[in-house]
Protein backbone atom coordinates (compact mmCIF):
# COMPACT_ATOMS: atom_id res chain seq x y z
CA UNK A 1 0.00 0.00 0.00
CA UNK A 2 1.43 3.36 -1.04
CA UNK A 3 1.48 6.62 0.93
CA UNK A 4 -1.60 7.96 -0.84
CA UNK A 5 -3.55 4.76 -0.27
CA UNK A 6 -2.81 4.92 3.46
CA UNK A 7 -3.96 8.56 3.62
CA UNK A 8 -7.23 7.71 1.82
CA UNK A 9 -7.79 4.69 4.11
CA UNK A 10 -7.09 6.76 7.25
CA UNK A 11 -9.56 9.42 6.10
CA UNK A 12 -12.22 6.74 5.48
CA UNK A 13 -11.56 5.34 8.96
CA UNK A 14 -11.77 8.85 10.44
CA UNK A 15 -8.26 8.70 11.90
CA UNK A 16 -5.75 11.57 11.86
CA UNK A 17 -2.20 10.22 11.60
CA UNK A 18 0.87 12.22 12.58
CA UNK A 19 3.85 12.03 10.24
CA UNK A 20 5.55 9.56 12.57
CA UNK A 21 2.40 7.43 12.82
CA UNK A 22 1.97 7.57 9.07
CA UNK A 23 5.43 6.09 8.52
CA UNK A 24 5.02 3.45 11.21
CA UNK A 25 1.55 2.32 10.14
CA UNK A 26 2.60 2.28 6.47
CA UNK A 27 5.31 -0.26 7.35
CA UNK A 28 3.05 -2.37 9.55
CA UNK A 29 0.11 -2.39 7.16
CA UNK A 30 2.42 -3.31 4.27
CA UNK A 31 3.81 -6.22 6.29
CA UNK A 32 0.33 -7.54 7.10
CA UNK A 33 -0.88 -7.18 3.51
CA UNK A 34 2.06 -9.18 2.21
CA UNK A 35 1.25 -11.79 4.85
CA UNK A 36 -2.34 -11.86 3.53
CA UNK A 37 -0.93 -12.73 0.08
CA UNK A 38 -0.47 -16.28 1.41
CA UNK A 39 -4.21 -16.68 0.74
CA UNK A 40 -3.83 -16.21 -3.04
CA UNK A 41 -2.41 -19.65 -3.78
CA UNK A 42 -4.88 -21.49 -1.56
CA UNK A 43 -7.77 -19.57 -3.10
CA UNK A 44 -6.63 -20.41 -6.65
CA UNK A 45 -6.47 -24.13 -5.76
CA UNK A 46 -9.92 -24.15 -4.21
CA UNK A 47 -12.71 -25.27 -6.52
CA UNK A 48 -15.37 -23.62 -4.40
CA UNK A 49 -16.73 -20.11 -4.84
CA UNK A 50 -18.85 -20.54 -1.71
CA UNK A 51 -18.42 -17.69 0.77
CA UNK A 52 -19.19 -17.49 4.47
CA UNK A 53 -20.20 -14.46 6.47
CA UNK A 54 -21.46 -16.31 9.57
CA UNK A 55 -20.05 -19.59 10.90
CA UNK A 56 -23.30 -21.35 11.77
CA UNK A 57 -25.67 -21.83 8.87
CA UNK A 58 -29.37 -22.41 8.99
CA UNK A 59 -29.86 -19.87 11.78
CA UNK A 60 -32.22 -17.07 10.83
CA UNK A 61 -30.41 -14.04 12.20
CA UNK A 62 -33.09 -11.57 11.13
CA UNK A 63 -35.72 -10.50 13.60
CA UNK A 64 -39.17 -9.17 12.95
CA UNK A 65 -39.15 -5.45 12.15
CA UNK A 66 -41.13 -4.25 15.13
CA UNK A 67 -40.67 -1.43 17.62
CA UNK A 68 -40.43 -1.77 21.37
CA UNK A 69 -39.65 0.58 24.21
CA UNK A 70 -36.25 0.23 25.90
CA UNK A 71 -36.95 -0.67 29.50
CA UNK A 72 -35.26 2.27 31.11
CA UNK A 73 -34.36 5.19 28.86
CA UNK A 74 -33.58 7.51 31.77
CA UNK A 75 -30.80 5.22 32.97
CA UNK A 76 -29.16 5.58 29.56
CA UNK A 77 -29.63 9.34 29.40
CA UNK A 78 -28.14 9.70 32.87
CA UNK A 79 -24.85 8.27 31.53
CA UNK A 80 -24.35 11.34 29.34
CA UNK A 81 -21.44 13.51 30.49
CA UNK A 82 -23.62 16.63 30.79
CA UNK A 83 -27.44 16.64 30.94
CA UNK A 84 -29.95 19.48 30.72
CA UNK A 85 -33.66 18.58 31.04
CA UNK A 86 -33.22 15.14 29.44
CA UNK A 87 -31.08 16.65 26.66
CA UNK A 88 -27.43 15.64 26.29
CA UNK A 89 -25.11 18.63 26.07
CA UNK A 90 -22.51 18.09 23.33
CA UNK A 91 -19.29 20.06 22.74
CA UNK A 92 -19.34 23.20 20.69
CA UNK A 93 -18.75 22.04 17.12
CA UNK A 94 -19.53 25.16 15.13
Amino acid at each position, binding site marked *: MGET*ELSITAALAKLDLSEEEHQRFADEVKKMLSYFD*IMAEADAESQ*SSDTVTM*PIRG*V*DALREDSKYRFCDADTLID*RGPEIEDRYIVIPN*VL
Partner: protein
Amino acid sequence: MQADWNTVLATAETLKEYRAGVEARDKDLGAFLHFSPSISTEAENPGSASAISGLPIAIKDNLAVTDFPLTCGSRLLEHFTSPYDATAVERLKAAGASIVGKTAMDEFGMGSATDTSALSETKNPWDPNRTAGGSSGGSAAAVAAGMVPAALGSDTGGSVRQPASFCGVYGLKPTYGAVSRFGLVAYASSLDTVGVIADTPDRLEAVFSVIAGEDAKDQTSIAAFSPGKPPVAPSDLSSLRVGILQADESDEPGVREAMTCVEDVFRTAGTEVETVTLPFLEYASAVYYTIATAEAGANLARFDGIRYGERPLYAENPDELVRLSRSTGLGDEVKLRILLGTYVLRSGFHDQYYGRAQRLRARIIQDMQDLFSRFDLLVSPVFPTLAFKLGRDGLTPYQRKQADRYTTVANLAGIPALAIPTGVHDGLPAGVQITGPAGGDYALIAAAKALHQALPPAAPATYPRIWS
Protein backbone atom coordinates in the same frame (compact mmCIF):
# COMPACT_ATOMS: atom_id res chain seq x y z
CA MET B 1 -7.44 -26.19 55.55
CA GLN B 2 -8.77 -24.17 52.61
CA ALA B 3 -12.08 -22.36 53.04
CA ASP B 4 -14.87 -22.92 50.49
CA TRP B 5 -15.28 -20.36 47.74
CA ASN B 6 -18.96 -19.98 48.53
CA THR B 7 -18.18 -18.70 52.04
CA VAL B 8 -15.88 -15.80 51.12
CA LEU B 9 -18.74 -13.34 50.60
CA ALA B 10 -20.92 -14.71 53.41
CA THR B 11 -20.12 -12.30 56.25
CA ALA B 12 -18.50 -8.91 56.76
CA GLU B 13 -15.50 -10.67 58.29
CA THR B 14 -14.91 -13.16 55.46
CA LEU B 15 -15.49 -10.40 52.92
CA LYS B 16 -12.82 -8.27 54.57
CA GLU B 17 -10.35 -11.16 54.49
CA TYR B 18 -11.20 -11.89 50.86
CA ARG B 19 -10.78 -8.28 49.79
CA ALA B 20 -7.44 -7.98 51.58
CA GLY B 21 -6.22 -11.30 50.13
CA VAL B 22 -7.09 -10.34 46.55
CA GLU B 23 -5.74 -6.79 46.83
CA ALA B 24 -2.42 -8.10 48.16
CA ARG B 25 -2.10 -10.55 45.28
CA ASP B 26 -3.25 -8.18 42.57
CA LYS B 27 -0.80 -5.45 43.52
CA ASP B 28 1.92 -7.28 41.59
CA LEU B 29 -0.26 -8.87 38.92
CA GLY B 30 -2.59 -6.16 37.60
CA ALA B 31 -5.39 -8.62 36.79
CA PHE B 32 -8.25 -6.37 37.95
CA LEU B 33 -9.16 -2.96 36.56
CA HIS B 34 -11.97 -2.68 39.06
CA PHE B 35 -12.54 -4.75 42.23
CA SER B 36 -15.53 -4.17 44.50
CA PRO B 37 -16.82 -7.36 46.13
CA SER B 38 -19.87 -7.16 48.36
CA ILE B 39 -21.67 -9.48 50.74
CA SER B 40 -23.71 -12.09 48.93
CA THR B 41 -27.06 -13.15 50.33
CA GLU B 42 -26.68 -16.32 48.28
CA ALA B 43 -23.45 -17.38 49.98
CA GLU B 44 -23.83 -20.54 52.03
CA ASN B 45 -27.47 -20.81 51.09
CA PRO B 46 -28.17 -24.50 51.66
CA GLY B 47 -31.49 -24.32 49.83
CA SER B 48 -29.92 -23.11 46.57
CA ALA B 49 -29.98 -25.48 43.64
CA SER B 50 -27.24 -23.65 41.73
CA ALA B 51 -23.66 -24.93 41.76
CA ILE B 52 -22.39 -21.36 41.42
CA SER B 53 -24.50 -19.81 44.17
CA GLY B 54 -22.45 -17.47 46.33
CA LEU B 55 -19.33 -17.77 44.15
CA PRO B 56 -17.25 -14.66 43.44
CA ILE B 57 -16.82 -14.34 39.66
CA ALA B 58 -14.73 -11.85 37.66
CA ILE B 59 -15.79 -10.41 34.30
CA LYS B 60 -13.60 -9.24 31.44
CA ASP B 61 -13.93 -5.49 30.99
CA ASN B 62 -15.68 -5.72 27.61
CA LEU B 63 -18.78 -7.37 29.11
CA ALA B 64 -21.44 -5.09 30.59
CA VAL B 65 -22.15 -5.21 34.34
CA THR B 66 -24.63 -2.68 35.71
CA ASP B 67 -22.89 0.28 37.38
CA PHE B 68 -19.42 -1.22 36.85
CA PRO B 69 -16.90 0.36 34.48
CA LEU B 70 -16.87 -0.87 30.88
CA THR B 71 -13.52 0.35 29.60
CA CYS B 72 -12.53 -2.40 27.13
CA GLY B 73 -8.98 -1.51 28.19
CA SER B 74 -9.30 1.71 26.21
CA ARG B 75 -8.51 5.32 27.08
CA LEU B 76 -11.58 6.24 25.06
CA LEU B 77 -13.93 4.45 27.50
CA GLU B 78 -11.89 4.99 30.68
CA HIS B 79 -14.73 6.70 32.56
CA PHE B 80 -17.67 4.88 31.02
CA THR B 81 -19.95 2.78 33.26
CA SER B 82 -22.58 0.35 32.02
CA PRO B 83 -26.30 1.00 32.52
CA TYR B 84 -27.22 -2.68 32.09
CA ASP B 85 -26.02 -6.31 32.39
CA ALA B 86 -24.84 -8.49 29.53
CA THR B 87 -27.10 -11.54 29.21
CA ALA B 88 -24.31 -13.86 30.43
CA VAL B 89 -23.80 -11.64 33.48
CA GLU B 90 -27.55 -11.42 34.13
CA ARG B 91 -27.73 -15.24 34.13
CA LEU B 92 -24.78 -15.56 36.53
CA LYS B 93 -26.45 -13.13 38.94
CA ALA B 94 -29.79 -14.93 38.64
CA ALA B 95 -28.03 -18.21 39.55
CA GLY B 96 -26.69 -16.58 42.73
CA ALA B 97 -23.11 -15.77 41.66
CA SER B 98 -21.62 -12.47 42.76
CA ILE B 99 -19.71 -10.27 40.30
CA VAL B 100 -16.65 -9.00 42.19
CA GLY B 101 -14.79 -7.04 39.53
CA LYS B 102 -13.70 -6.30 35.98
CA THR B 103 -10.49 -7.73 34.56
CA ALA B 104 -7.70 -6.29 32.41
CA MET B 105 -7.58 -6.94 28.69
CA ASP B 106 -5.97 -5.85 25.46
CA GLU B 107 -7.75 -2.78 24.08
CA PHE B 108 -11.07 -3.96 22.60
CA GLY B 109 -9.72 -7.54 22.70
CA MET B 110 -7.02 -6.80 20.12
CA GLY B 111 -3.81 -8.40 21.34
CA SER B 112 -2.13 -11.45 22.87
CA ALA B 113 -0.53 -10.09 26.04
CA THR B 114 -2.76 -7.33 27.57
CA ASP B 115 0.02 -4.93 26.57
CA THR B 116 -2.15 -3.07 24.07
CA SER B 117 -4.30 -2.02 27.06
CA ALA B 118 -4.20 1.67 27.88
CA LEU B 119 -4.97 0.85 31.53
CA SER B 120 -3.15 -2.24 32.87
CA GLU B 121 -0.73 -4.92 31.70
CA THR B 122 -1.25 -8.23 33.53
CA LYS B 123 1.75 -10.26 34.75
CA ASN B 124 1.79 -14.04 34.71
CA PRO B 125 1.23 -15.54 38.22
CA TRP B 126 3.86 -18.20 37.40
CA ASP B 127 6.57 -15.70 36.44
CA PRO B 128 6.21 -11.90 36.82
CA ASN B 129 8.58 -11.35 33.88
CA ARG B 130 6.17 -13.07 31.52
CA THR B 131 2.79 -12.21 30.09
CA ALA B 132 -0.48 -13.66 31.35
CA GLY B 133 -1.51 -13.81 27.68
CA GLY B 134 -4.37 -12.05 26.02
CA SER B 135 -6.65 -10.63 25.36
CA SER B 136 -8.48 -12.08 28.44
CA GLY B 137 -5.19 -12.03 30.42
CA GLY B 138 -6.74 -10.42 33.51
CA SER B 139 -9.44 -13.09 33.76
CA ALA B 140 -6.92 -15.94 33.36
CA ALA B 141 -4.46 -14.49 35.89
CA ALA B 142 -7.28 -13.84 38.40
CA VAL B 143 -8.26 -17.53 38.27
CA ALA B 144 -4.67 -18.85 38.22
CA ALA B 145 -3.64 -16.71 41.21
CA GLY B 146 -6.60 -17.99 43.24
CA MET B 147 -8.43 -14.65 43.36
CA VAL B 148 -11.64 -16.05 41.85
CA PRO B 149 -12.65 -19.64 40.98
CA ALA B 150 -14.02 -18.62 37.58
CA ALA B 151 -14.16 -15.65 35.23
CA LEU B 152 -15.78 -14.73 31.96
CA GLY B 153 -13.70 -13.71 28.96
CA SER B 154 -14.31 -13.20 25.28
CA ASP B 155 -12.70 -15.21 22.50
CA THR B 156 -12.55 -13.83 18.95
CA GLY B 157 -9.36 -15.59 17.81
CA GLY B 158 -8.05 -17.35 20.93
CA SER B 159 -8.46 -14.68 23.61
CA VAL B 160 -9.85 -17.08 26.24
CA ARG B 161 -7.77 -20.17 25.41
CA GLN B 162 -4.30 -18.64 25.00
CA PRO B 163 -4.25 -16.76 28.36
CA ALA B 164 -5.89 -19.75 30.11
CA SER B 165 -3.10 -21.95 28.78
CA PHE B 166 -0.36 -19.42 29.62
CA CYS B 167 -1.67 -19.32 33.21
CA GLY B 168 -2.36 -23.07 33.65
CA VAL B 169 -6.17 -23.00 33.96
CA TYR B 170 -9.13 -24.20 31.86
CA GLY B 171 -10.55 -21.97 29.12
CA LEU B 172 -13.59 -22.69 26.93
CA LYS B 173 -14.45 -20.96 23.67
CA PRO B 174 -18.01 -22.21 23.12
CA THR B 175 -19.78 -22.98 19.84
CA TYR B 176 -20.67 -19.73 18.06
CA GLY B 177 -24.10 -18.69 19.33
CA ALA B 178 -24.06 -20.98 22.39
CA VAL B 179 -23.75 -17.95 24.68
CA SER B 180 -25.56 -14.69 23.94
CA ARG B 181 -23.33 -11.82 22.87
CA PHE B 182 -25.76 -9.21 24.17
CA GLY B 183 -23.73 -6.83 26.34
CA LEU B 184 -20.38 -7.91 24.86
CA VAL B 185 -18.68 -4.94 23.20
CA ALA B 186 -18.32 -6.12 19.60
CA TYR B 187 -14.92 -6.61 17.99
CA ALA B 188 -15.59 -9.01 15.08
CA SER B 189 -19.21 -10.10 15.24
CA SER B 190 -19.01 -13.30 13.17
CA LEU B 191 -16.10 -14.55 15.33
CA ASP B 192 -16.86 -13.16 18.83
CA THR B 193 -17.86 -15.56 21.61
CA VAL B 194 -18.27 -15.20 25.37
CA GLY B 195 -16.09 -17.83 27.05
CA VAL B 196 -15.37 -19.24 30.51
CA ILE B 197 -12.09 -19.54 32.42
CA ALA B 198 -12.13 -21.75 35.53
CA ASP B 199 -9.91 -23.64 37.97
CA THR B 200 -11.51 -27.04 37.28
CA PRO B 201 -13.57 -28.60 34.44
CA ASP B 202 -16.49 -29.12 36.88
CA ARG B 203 -16.57 -25.42 37.70
CA LEU B 204 -16.23 -24.52 34.04
CA GLU B 205 -19.23 -26.71 33.25
CA ALA B 206 -21.27 -25.19 36.08
CA VAL B 207 -20.66 -21.66 34.79
CA PHE B 208 -21.13 -22.56 31.12
CA SER B 209 -24.43 -24.35 31.75
CA VAL B 210 -25.75 -21.21 33.46
CA ILE B 211 -24.77 -18.71 30.74
CA ALA B 212 -25.52 -20.87 27.65
CA GLY B 213 -28.83 -20.81 25.81
CA GLU B 214 -31.00 -18.86 23.42
CA ASP B 215 -31.54 -15.16 24.07
CA ALA B 216 -34.06 -12.93 22.33
CA LYS B 217 -31.53 -10.09 22.53
CA ASP B 218 -29.00 -11.92 20.32
CA GLN B 219 -30.43 -13.19 17.03
CA THR B 220 -27.42 -15.47 16.48
CA SER B 221 -27.84 -17.29 19.81
CA ILE B 222 -28.97 -20.90 19.47
CA ALA B 223 -31.41 -22.99 21.45
CA ALA B 224 -29.47 -26.24 21.43
CA PHE B 225 -27.87 -25.26 24.72
CA SER B 226 -30.90 -24.46 26.83
CA PRO B 227 -29.73 -24.39 30.45
CA GLY B 228 -30.31 -27.65 32.29
CA LYS B 229 -30.31 -29.79 29.16
CA PRO B 230 -26.71 -30.78 28.44
CA PRO B 231 -26.45 -33.34 25.63
CA VAL B 232 -25.22 -36.77 26.61
CA ALA B 233 -21.45 -36.79 26.47
CA PRO B 234 -18.96 -39.62 26.35
CA SER B 235 -16.99 -39.54 29.59
CA ASP B 236 -15.09 -42.74 28.97
CA LEU B 237 -11.93 -41.92 27.02
CA SER B 238 -11.75 -45.40 25.48
CA SER B 239 -14.96 -44.78 23.55
CA LEU B 240 -13.53 -41.73 21.77
CA ARG B 241 -11.93 -41.40 18.35
CA VAL B 242 -9.23 -38.77 18.69
CA GLY B 243 -7.23 -36.91 16.03
CA ILE B 244 -3.84 -35.62 17.16
CA LEU B 245 -2.39 -32.77 15.13
CA GLN B 246 1.01 -33.68 13.68
CA ALA B 247 3.81 -32.04 15.66
CA ASP B 248 5.34 -28.88 14.25
CA GLU B 249 9.07 -28.92 14.98
CA SER B 250 9.13 -25.13 15.18
CA ASP B 251 6.84 -25.15 18.24
CA GLU B 252 8.60 -24.78 21.61
CA PRO B 253 9.68 -28.05 23.35
CA GLY B 254 7.19 -27.47 26.21
CA VAL B 255 4.35 -27.27 23.68
CA ARG B 256 5.37 -30.50 21.93
CA GLU B 257 5.87 -32.24 25.28
CA ALA B 258 2.30 -31.35 26.31
CA MET B 259 0.98 -32.89 23.07
CA THR B 260 2.92 -36.13 23.66
CA CYS B 261 1.74 -36.22 27.26
CA VAL B 262 -1.95 -36.03 26.27
CA GLU B 263 -1.49 -38.56 23.46
CA ASP B 264 0.01 -40.98 26.02
CA VAL B 265 -3.00 -40.56 28.32
CA PHE B 266 -5.38 -41.37 25.45
CA ARG B 267 -3.32 -44.38 24.30
CA THR B 268 -3.08 -45.74 27.85
CA ALA B 269 -6.87 -45.42 28.18
CA GLY B 270 -7.32 -47.45 24.99
CA THR B 271 -8.57 -44.53 22.88
CA GLU B 272 -8.44 -44.83 19.09
CA VAL B 273 -5.78 -42.24 18.20
CA GLU B 274 -4.61 -41.08 14.77
CA THR B 275 -2.21 -38.34 13.69
CA VAL B 276 -3.76 -35.75 11.37
CA THR B 277 -2.57 -32.76 9.38
CA LEU B 278 -4.48 -29.56 8.64
CA PRO B 279 -3.04 -27.98 5.48
CA PHE B 280 -5.07 -24.78 6.00
CA LEU B 281 -3.16 -23.94 9.20
CA GLU B 282 -0.63 -22.26 6.94
CA TYR B 283 -3.08 -19.51 6.03
CA ALA B 284 -5.67 -19.66 8.86
CA SER B 285 -4.24 -16.59 10.63
CA ALA B 286 -4.27 -14.58 7.39
CA VAL B 287 -7.93 -15.48 6.79
CA TYR B 288 -8.71 -14.62 10.39
CA TYR B 289 -6.97 -11.23 10.42
CA THR B 290 -8.57 -10.23 7.11
CA ILE B 291 -12.08 -10.98 8.37
CA ALA B 292 -11.54 -9.82 11.96
CA THR B 293 -10.07 -6.45 10.96
CA ALA B 294 -12.78 -5.87 8.35
CA GLU B 295 -15.48 -6.46 10.95
CA ALA B 296 -13.58 -4.42 13.56
CA GLY B 297 -13.37 -1.45 11.19
CA ALA B 298 -17.15 -1.45 10.95
CA ASN B 299 -17.86 -2.23 14.62
CA LEU B 300 -15.51 0.39 16.03
CA ALA B 301 -16.99 3.15 13.87
CA ARG B 302 -19.40 3.72 16.78
CA PHE B 303 -16.58 5.12 18.92
CA ASP B 304 -16.93 8.63 17.60
CA GLY B 305 -16.70 10.70 20.79
CA ILE B 306 -20.35 11.67 20.46
CA ARG B 307 -22.23 8.67 21.77
CA TYR B 308 -19.48 7.17 23.94
CA GLY B 309 -16.52 8.11 26.00
CA GLU B 310 -13.73 10.63 25.98
CA ARG B 311 -13.65 13.48 23.48
CA PRO B 312 -11.85 16.80 22.97
CA LEU B 313 -13.25 19.91 24.64
CA TYR B 314 -13.51 21.75 21.36
CA ALA B 315 -13.71 20.96 17.65
CA GLU B 316 -14.26 23.10 14.57
CA ASN B 317 -16.97 20.82 13.20
CA PRO B 318 -18.59 17.41 13.88
CA ASP B 319 -16.19 15.63 11.54
CA GLU B 320 -13.20 17.02 13.39
CA LEU B 321 -14.76 16.03 16.72
CA VAL B 322 -14.98 12.42 15.52
CA ARG B 323 -11.45 12.36 14.09
CA LEU B 324 -9.90 13.96 17.19
CA SER B 325 -11.78 11.64 19.56
CA ARG B 326 -10.67 8.53 17.69
CA SER B 327 -7.11 9.69 17.06
CA THR B 328 -6.45 10.56 20.72
CA GLY B 329 -8.67 7.89 22.35
CA LEU B 330 -7.60 4.75 20.48
CA GLY B 331 -4.25 2.96 20.84
CA ASP B 332 -1.81 1.89 18.12
CA GLU B 333 -2.90 -1.74 17.74
CA VAL B 334 -6.55 -0.74 17.40
CA LYS B 335 -5.68 1.94 14.84
CA LEU B 336 -3.62 -0.58 12.86
CA ARG B 337 -6.48 -3.06 12.75
CA ILE B 338 -9.02 -0.40 11.78
CA LEU B 339 -6.73 0.76 8.96
CA LEU B 340 -6.22 -2.81 7.73
CA GLY B 341 -9.93 -3.60 7.97
CA THR B 342 -10.92 -0.43 6.13
CA TYR B 343 -8.40 -1.19 3.40
CA VAL B 344 -9.44 -4.82 2.77
CA LEU B 345 -13.07 -3.71 2.34
CA ARG B 346 -12.34 -0.85 -0.06
CA SER B 347 -13.70 -1.22 -3.57
CA GLY B 348 -10.88 -2.42 -5.77
CA PHE B 349 -9.27 -4.46 -2.99
CA HIS B 350 -12.33 -6.25 -1.65
CA ASP B 351 -12.08 -9.38 -3.78
CA GLN B 352 -8.33 -9.69 -3.35
CA TYR B 353 -8.61 -9.75 0.45
CA TYR B 354 -12.04 -9.93 2.08
CA GLY B 355 -13.74 -11.94 -0.69
CA ARG B 356 -10.85 -14.37 -0.79
CA ALA B 357 -10.84 -14.77 3.00
CA GLN B 358 -14.57 -15.54 2.99
CA ARG B 359 -14.09 -18.26 0.37
CA LEU B 360 -11.25 -19.80 2.35
CA ARG B 361 -13.31 -19.61 5.52
CA ALA B 362 -16.02 -21.69 3.80
CA ARG B 363 -13.34 -24.23 2.93
CA ILE B 364 -11.98 -24.37 6.49
CA ILE B 365 -15.52 -24.97 7.81
CA GLN B 366 -16.02 -27.81 5.32
CA ASP B 367 -12.63 -29.37 6.12
CA MET B 368 -13.38 -29.30 9.87
CA GLN B 369 -16.81 -30.88 9.29
CA ASP B 370 -15.12 -33.65 7.29
CA LEU B 371 -12.58 -34.12 10.09
CA PHE B 372 -15.31 -34.48 12.71
CA SER B 373 -17.09 -37.11 10.64
CA ARG B 374 -14.06 -39.29 11.46
CA PHE B 375 -13.12 -38.06 14.94
CA ASP B 376 -14.90 -36.98 18.12
CA LEU B 377 -12.25 -34.47 18.99
CA LEU B 378 -8.98 -32.98 17.79
CA VAL B 379 -5.98 -32.35 20.04
CA SER B 380 -3.70 -29.49 19.01
CA PRO B 381 -1.40 -26.94 20.63
CA VAL B 382 -2.96 -23.69 21.85
CA PHE B 383 -0.03 -21.47 20.88
CA PRO B 384 3.44 -22.32 19.50
CA THR B 385 5.12 -21.04 22.70
CA LEU B 386 4.52 -21.12 26.44
CA ALA B 387 3.94 -17.73 28.15
CA PHE B 388 6.42 -15.38 26.48
CA LYS B 389 8.45 -12.61 28.11
CA LEU B 390 7.11 -9.11 28.63
CA GLY B 391 8.39 -6.24 26.53
CA ARG B 392 11.06 -6.43 23.85
CA ASP B 393 12.29 -9.88 24.94
CA GLY B 394 8.94 -11.39 23.95
CA LEU B 395 7.34 -11.92 20.55
CA THR B 396 6.82 -9.01 18.14
CA PRO B 397 3.20 -8.05 17.32
CA TYR B 398 3.67 -9.58 13.85
CA GLN B 399 5.00 -12.89 15.27
CA ARG B 400 2.07 -13.04 17.69
CA LYS B 401 -0.44 -12.70 14.85
CA GLN B 402 1.14 -15.55 12.92
CA ALA B 403 1.18 -17.60 16.12
CA ASP B 404 -2.63 -17.42 16.39
CA ARG B 405 -2.93 -20.18 13.76
CA TYR B 406 -3.99 -22.92 16.20
CA THR B 407 -6.70 -20.92 17.96
CA THR B 408 -8.26 -18.96 15.08
CA VAL B 409 -9.56 -22.13 13.35
CA ALA B 410 -12.29 -22.67 15.98
CA ASN B 411 -13.50 -19.08 15.59
CA LEU B 412 -13.52 -19.23 11.79
CA ALA B 413 -15.43 -22.53 11.90
CA GLY B 414 -17.74 -21.53 14.78
CA ILE B 415 -16.85 -24.70 16.70
CA PRO B 416 -16.05 -25.19 20.41
CA ALA B 417 -12.49 -25.50 21.72
CA LEU B 418 -11.14 -25.92 25.23
CA ALA B 419 -7.65 -25.17 26.59
CA ILE B 420 -6.51 -27.75 29.13
CA PRO B 421 -3.47 -27.52 31.42
CA THR B 422 -1.30 -30.64 31.22
CA GLY B 423 1.62 -29.91 33.54
CA VAL B 424 4.57 -27.64 34.15
CA HIS B 425 7.59 -27.26 31.85
CA ASP B 426 10.62 -25.31 33.15
CA GLY B 427 8.44 -23.57 35.72
CA LEU B 428 5.72 -22.54 33.25
CA PRO B 429 2.32 -24.13 32.68
CA ALA B 430 1.92 -26.10 29.45
CA GLY B 431 -1.27 -27.34 27.87
CA VAL B 432 -3.20 -28.40 24.80
CA GLN B 433 -6.41 -27.46 23.07
CA ILE B 434 -9.21 -29.93 22.34
CA THR B 435 -11.65 -29.01 19.58
CA GLY B 436 -14.96 -30.63 18.70
CA PRO B 437 -17.83 -30.26 16.23
CA ALA B 438 -20.43 -27.47 16.60
CA GLY B 439 -22.61 -28.20 19.62
CA GLY B 440 -20.01 -30.53 21.17
CA ASP B 441 -19.21 -28.22 24.09
CA TYR B 442 -20.32 -30.61 26.84
CA ALA B 443 -18.47 -33.51 25.19
CA LEU B 444 -15.26 -31.43 25.31
CA ILE B 445 -15.87 -30.65 28.99
CA ALA B 446 -16.42 -34.38 29.67
CA ALA B 447 -13.08 -35.17 27.99
CA ALA B 448 -11.45 -32.38 30.03
CA LYS B 449 -12.79 -33.97 33.23
CA ALA B 450 -11.24 -37.32 32.31
CA LEU B 451 -7.93 -35.65 31.44
CA HIS B 452 -8.11 -33.63 34.69
CA GLN B 453 -7.99 -36.91 36.64
CA ALA B 454 -4.95 -38.10 34.70
CA LEU B 455 -3.19 -34.71 34.65
CA PRO B 456 -4.27 -32.70 37.71
CA PRO B 457 -3.11 -29.07 37.29
CA ALA B 458 -0.84 -27.34 39.80
CA ALA B 459 -1.13 -23.86 41.32
CA PRO B 460 1.75 -21.37 40.99
CA ALA B 461 4.06 -21.59 44.04
CA THR B 462 3.84 -17.82 44.72
CA TYR B 463 0.06 -17.96 44.90
CA PRO B 464 -0.99 -21.03 46.90
CA ARG B 465 -4.72 -21.64 47.07
CA ILE B 466 -6.46 -19.85 49.97
CA TRP B 467 -9.98 -20.91 48.94
CA SER B 468 -11.12 -24.01 47.04
